[in-house]
């Protein structure tokens, strides 16, 4: 698919002298020229070269960052506090009212199982999903859709609202690579798909628990819990 401009350029070459080492050049705008200091007043960086007159600024003898001229510096006088939790997970929130809105407007198909791929593709969960999606219970009273959904985590009220309508919810663990396989399958075309990782030890407790509808829970107990929730809603 050589476009028109390529054809024209090649045709124009026929009229021009032979391209050789002496007549090639780069585009002048392709590179920024290095600023040459101390080359006269016209360059705006002549005389003092932008360093001002006298002292530390000119002679480059400034003290280190945080030095307060001999006082005990702030970073030494104040004790350390706090820490950074390396195991912290950032789940993108998704509320039931937004889920209902997306089902109503036809952007999510309630007849097929929904997972995080569909949520992300439809725009129900925006931006970059870092560790997964957590389903929350805002709008639980008027939630009507009957769906089969899989997310990373779900609140108890959200679980109750979905199962009240006869739906099904499972919470499944995806690590970063697993999430990438799920959300961007086109990146793994023609490659062996990596195995899915099990949850780390501290998350294993959550996903084994049938109360959380964890995907590693005993299927019988999971079914029992779902049944109990459904019966409770019918009584109300």
């Amino acid at each position, binding site marked *: 698919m*050589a476009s028109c*401009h*390529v054809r024209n*350029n*090649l*045709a124009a*070459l*026929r009229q*021009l002298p*032979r*391209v*050789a*080492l002496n007549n*090639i*050049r*780069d*585009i002048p705008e*392709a590179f920024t020229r290095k600023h040459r200091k101390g080359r006269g007043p016209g360059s705006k960086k002549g005389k003092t070269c932008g360093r001002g007159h006298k002292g530390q600024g000119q002679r480059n003898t400034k003290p280190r960052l945080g030095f307060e001229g001999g006082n005990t510096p702030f970073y030494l006088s104040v004790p350390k506090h706090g820490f950074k939790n390396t195991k912290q997970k950032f789940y993108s929130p998704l509320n039931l009212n937004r889920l209902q809105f997306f089902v109503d407007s036809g952007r999510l198909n309630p007849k097929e199982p929904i997972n995080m791929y569909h949520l992300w593709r439809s725009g129900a969960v925006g931006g970059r999903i870092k560790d997964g999606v957590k389903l929350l219970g805002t709008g639980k009273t008027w939630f009507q859709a009957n769906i089969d959904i899989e997310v990373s985590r779900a609140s108890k009220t959200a679980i109750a609202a979905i199962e009240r309508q006869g739906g099904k919810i499972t919470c499944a663990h995806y690590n970063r*690579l697993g999430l990438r396989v799920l959300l961007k399958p086109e990146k793994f*075309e*023609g*490659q*062996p798909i*990596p*195995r*899915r*990782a*099990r949850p780390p*030890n501290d998350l*294993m*407790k959550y996903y*084994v*628990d*049938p109360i959380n509808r964890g995907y*590693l*829970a*005993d*299927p019988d*107990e999971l079914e029992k819990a779902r049944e109990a929730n459904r019966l409770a809603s019918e009584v109300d």
Partner: protein
Amino acid sequence: MSLTSRFLRRNPFFGSFGLLSSPADLPKCQKILLPFCQAPMTSRWYKFSIKPLAPVPKPKPLDVETLPCSGVFSPSVCSFIAERDYENHNSGILAWVTSFTGENPVGLIELNKFVFGANPRIDILQRVVVWQRAKRRAGTACVKTRSEKRGGGRKPWQQKGTGRARQGSIRAPHFIGGGHAHGPKPKSFYYSLPKKVRRMGLRTALSVRYAQGDLHIVDSFKDIESERDLIPLLEKRDWNNAVLVDSEPNSKLRRAAVEMDKVDVLYSLALNVYTILHRKNTILTLDAVRALEERLVEDDRILINKFE
């Protein structure tokens, strides 16, 4: 809950879902080595499981006998067309193939549009040439600083009382015979140009030579034994300033061209932008064209996304 989470933690194969229908089956599975569970679970296991893309399977070459050109063109030209037709078909870039010894045309071939019909980006040529010349620099320029100069340890005269300016060494930079301040020192001028740009430069150079009519294709250099064979042939066609490119290193041809100042002999892998632009004509054999196209059209295959 029938199983404690403590047990699950110990089981190394728990992450693989598939054969395990329920957690109750786990004790049995622990003893059996499942086929997809053989790799030990390490923190970086997934890095090894991702392999590079497999090369695209090439289509089979066409039957030479069914081609309309069979019998008219020479057999080597026909086999070239049969092999490369699936990518070069209807490219619109036609080139005569002549015999190197006889000068008569032996066939007409279609060249690849991506390789021989690229946009003539003169700036890319310049960038590649500058890079080639920079990395070839020896970088051996060297001068002595005041510490490397001989002598100069003694204070030339006392600090006060002489009426002269104070000095500490006779090898200071402002002295005649003193050391150099900020002079050159041996260093490497190599820098890395992106490989895609290098390949683009080669495509551009070939396309420019084709567009200006300085690209010639011959069947082979096989009958060349010495300079006695080569020089008259080149002079007859006015190819005294040329780069001859074979598909593989050709020692006979190189020896034959040693005496000629303006003739370079290269093979397809060693072909470069600087030499193409340095010489007026570029002469490729059919095998060299095939090798170059196979190598350089790879970028186009990725662009078109022909992977299955």
